């Protein structure tokens, strides 16, 4: 393929004699920390080095978790870290990497492997020179070397090694090229050198900061930009000496597609096409075809009758009803969780992984920035919002990528309030399919209107700032099949561990209430609200009660009621609006509490639940008064 890695490990350590011996780690490092800018192939190198899969993402800042693995053929621990642009942290997930680097500094058996995009040496050197400042033993890996070659960029690896005093290796991690060179170079890791003088007002304070001095926080960002500017000056000088300029002919198609996806005109049809594809795959194929297969075919056709037959040999009524009765763990809990929810989850997360790995999501952020501005957010919030269509709890965790406290809080509120997760969305789409189109529009308008209004209001009420929108657009890439599948599998596994137990608990609670004759009490207590305000049959109270646990469970229950012909189109829309505006599930409340504290979580719940019923009531009045959507 025209690829050539300069030399093996031994030849490259030229010019290392000048490095003080004290900077050298043990011959065989026990701990290897991978760090680098976003989208340089860090996770790909991690996978190649460990033989273990980790999440590889194209969206800057998605790798919130730190991945660990063992070096294949060795015992050293390899740690993958979230991408970052500067060692000194500005956000919560940059802090993770920062703590890791500091721990390497105090550990003689640890080295940093800095992964760089060979096409973008200048930005990588900003980090290398900070590592030099901090005197951390480092190996510099210039990844995606093939792409640099295709662009005509010539890199003088030996010259870079001599100038920086550290091993520099070229790799193509996705194809496993150059890995032996990296492993062989680990023992030769040194602290990088920076010969160029640092201005007096920048160098010493930066060192103090890097060594852990707590700065007066209000001056930190201003100082950081001067520090970065000084380092970039050095990086420019080194880049000019050891790398030639490339031409941008390489990957012309990917470049053009990347440009079209944010084009002021063509961007919109592309966005619509993506949404339509999502709807067809998740809504029609997942929630329609697959759910029918699983539910009518597998569960109603085979599993449920088998289970009923099996349990009919049991003499104890109570146990039999517990598993296969009206509120049975198998007939209700498992069949809701596996037959209705699972196909939707799998199809959604497959789509999401495809979007994520293609590099489209940051472009979606560019297209949607203006809409999010209204809600006091910026385009970056589109990632948690789209992920929320998969699982709101998972999305709540990713609000960490938003830069200010206010934006994180706003995004969490909007997720909990209005973004239906895929399990629920599937059920909603199925239910809305039986009402007139105008009724479905009422549902959409009510939910979107409430989100916009609450976002607009909350943005004005909550204290704090909205950060300016800056997002890096990585090149568009063809997603790797293995990566998409493994990432989907990992997320589905997470979801099943998270959701299935709650489905079973929910069913069990219903079963208990039913056995203890408390269900009638709940229905009677809930009647004024459910029948009085929402105009639904009193039995829907039980669904809403379970909605406190998981709203998709409630939606599924209401779906069941509507299929029996128990609800007219106004009732269906009212029920769907109310349940959509519910907090997604009890796990979501826990997640909000974990991220922002119990007081915030309680306040959100106290705001959202009454609002959901109030809006549901308003929709009912509106539909009855106008006759819109009555079918």
């Amino acid at each position, binding site marked *: 393929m025209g690829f050539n890695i300069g030399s093996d490990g031994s030849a490259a350590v030229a010019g290392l004699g000048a490095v003080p011996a004290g900077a050298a780690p043990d011959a065989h490092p026990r701990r290897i920390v991978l760090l680098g800018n976003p989208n340089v192939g860090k996770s790909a190198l991690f996978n190649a080095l460990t033989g273990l899969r980790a999440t590889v993402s194209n969206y800057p800042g998605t790798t919130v978790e730190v991945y660990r693995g063992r070096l294949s053929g060795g015992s050293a621990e390899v740690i993958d870290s979230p991408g970052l642009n500067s060692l000194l942290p500005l956000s919560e997930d940059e802090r993770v990497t920062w703590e890791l680097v500091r721990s390497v500094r105090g550990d003689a058996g640890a080295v940093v492997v800095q992964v760089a995009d060979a096409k973008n040496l200048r930005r990588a050197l*900003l980090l290398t020179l900070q590592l030099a400042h901090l005197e951390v033993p480092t190996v510099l890996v210039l990844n995606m070397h093939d792409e640099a070659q295709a662009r005509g960029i010539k890199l003088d690896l030996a010259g870079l090694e001599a100038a920086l005093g550290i091993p520099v290796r070229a790799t193509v991690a996705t194809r496993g090229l150059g890995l032996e060179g990296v492993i062989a170079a680990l023992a030769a890791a040194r602290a990088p050198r920076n010969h160029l003088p640092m201005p007096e007002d920048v160098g010493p304070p930066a060192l103090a900061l890097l060594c852990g001095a707590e700065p007066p926080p209000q001056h930190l960002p201003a100082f950081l930009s001067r520090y970065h500017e000084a380092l970039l000056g050095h990086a420019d000088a080194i880049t000019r000496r050891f790398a030639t300029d490339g031409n941008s002919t390489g990957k012309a198609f990917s470049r053009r597609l990347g440009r079209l996806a944010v084009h002021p*005109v063509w961007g919109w049809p592309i966005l619509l096409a993506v949404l339509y594809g999502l709807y067809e795959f998740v809504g029609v194929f997942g929630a329609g075809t697959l759910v029918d297969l699983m539910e009518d075919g597998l569960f109603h056709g085979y599993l449920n009758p088998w289970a009923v037959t099996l349990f009919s040999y049991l003499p104890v009524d109570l146990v039999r009803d517990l598993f296969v009765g009206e509120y049975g763990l198998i007939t209700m809990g498992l069949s809701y969780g596996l037959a209705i929810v699972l196909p939707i989850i799998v199809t959604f997360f497959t789509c999401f992984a495809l979007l994520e790995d293609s590099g489209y999501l940051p472009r979606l952020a560019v297209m949607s920035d203006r809409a999010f501005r209204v809600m006091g957010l910026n385009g970056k919030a589109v990632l948690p919002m789209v992920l929320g269509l998969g699982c709101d709890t998972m999305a709540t965790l990713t609000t960490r990528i938003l830069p200010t406290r206010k934006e994180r809080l706003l995004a969490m509120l909007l997720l909990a309030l209005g973004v239906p997760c895929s399990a629920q969305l599937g059920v909603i789409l199925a239910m809305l399919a039986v009402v007139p189109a105008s009724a479905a529009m009422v549902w959409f308008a009510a939910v979107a209107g409430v989100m916009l209004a609450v976002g607009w209001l909350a943005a004005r009420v909550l204290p704090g700032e909205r950060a300016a929108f*800056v997002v*890096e657009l990585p090149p568009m890439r063809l997603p790797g099949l293995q990566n998409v599948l493994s990432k989907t599998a990992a997320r589905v596994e997470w979801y099943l561990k998270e959701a299935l137990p709650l489905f079973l608990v929910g069913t069990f609670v219903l079963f208990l209430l039913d056995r203890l004759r408390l269900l009638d009490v709940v229905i009677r207590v809930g009647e004024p609200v459910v029948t009085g305000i929402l105009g639904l049959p009193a039995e829907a109270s039980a669904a809403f009660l379970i909605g406190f646990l998981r709203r998709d469970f409630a939606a599924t229950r209401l779906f069941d009621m509507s299929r029996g012909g128990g609800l007219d189109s106004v009732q269906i829309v009212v029920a769907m609006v109310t349940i959509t505006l519910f907090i997604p599930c009890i796990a979501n409340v826990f997640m909000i509490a974990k991220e922002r504290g119990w007081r915030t979580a309680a306040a959100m719940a106290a705001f959202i639940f009454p609002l959901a019923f109030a809006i549901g009531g308003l929709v009912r009045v509106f539909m009855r008064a106008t006759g819109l959507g009555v079918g």
Partner: protein
Amino acid sequence: MATLPETGPPAAVAAHVTCPLCGLDYQPGGETCREHGCPIAIGGCATQHCPRCGYTMPDESRSGAARLIRRLFRRQPPVVTHTAGSLAELPAGSFGVVERLQGPPDLLARLTAQGLAPGVAVHVLQRLPTFVIEVGETTLGLERDVAAGIVLRQS
């Protein structure tokens, strides 16, 4: 956008046009239409015809719609020198060199960490729905407010 010279033939109507079909160089605006008895020719329509083969081309000097469609399909716009104060004033397709950055300190710390610093050449790819710029090998999307804080060097 006024500084952008249009590429291609249509802007200069007086110059000749090369027929894409038969390759004839001809001067548009001749008497061909009226001679052929086309009823629209009196008011003047927004197309022009090759006198040899009759191939029809839009006359972009007369048709706003044709110009708009051309803009939608335009490849890389031509490189333009400019005297803009900030990046926010640069037309799409043009280059500038950063003089200094202004804005909230934490924003500046982020921009510099992404390689945007004084002395760097910036290429504006588009201005809507947000600005999209290239800084070396890095592509950034940013809001107008941010672009307005990127002060350019006067050449």
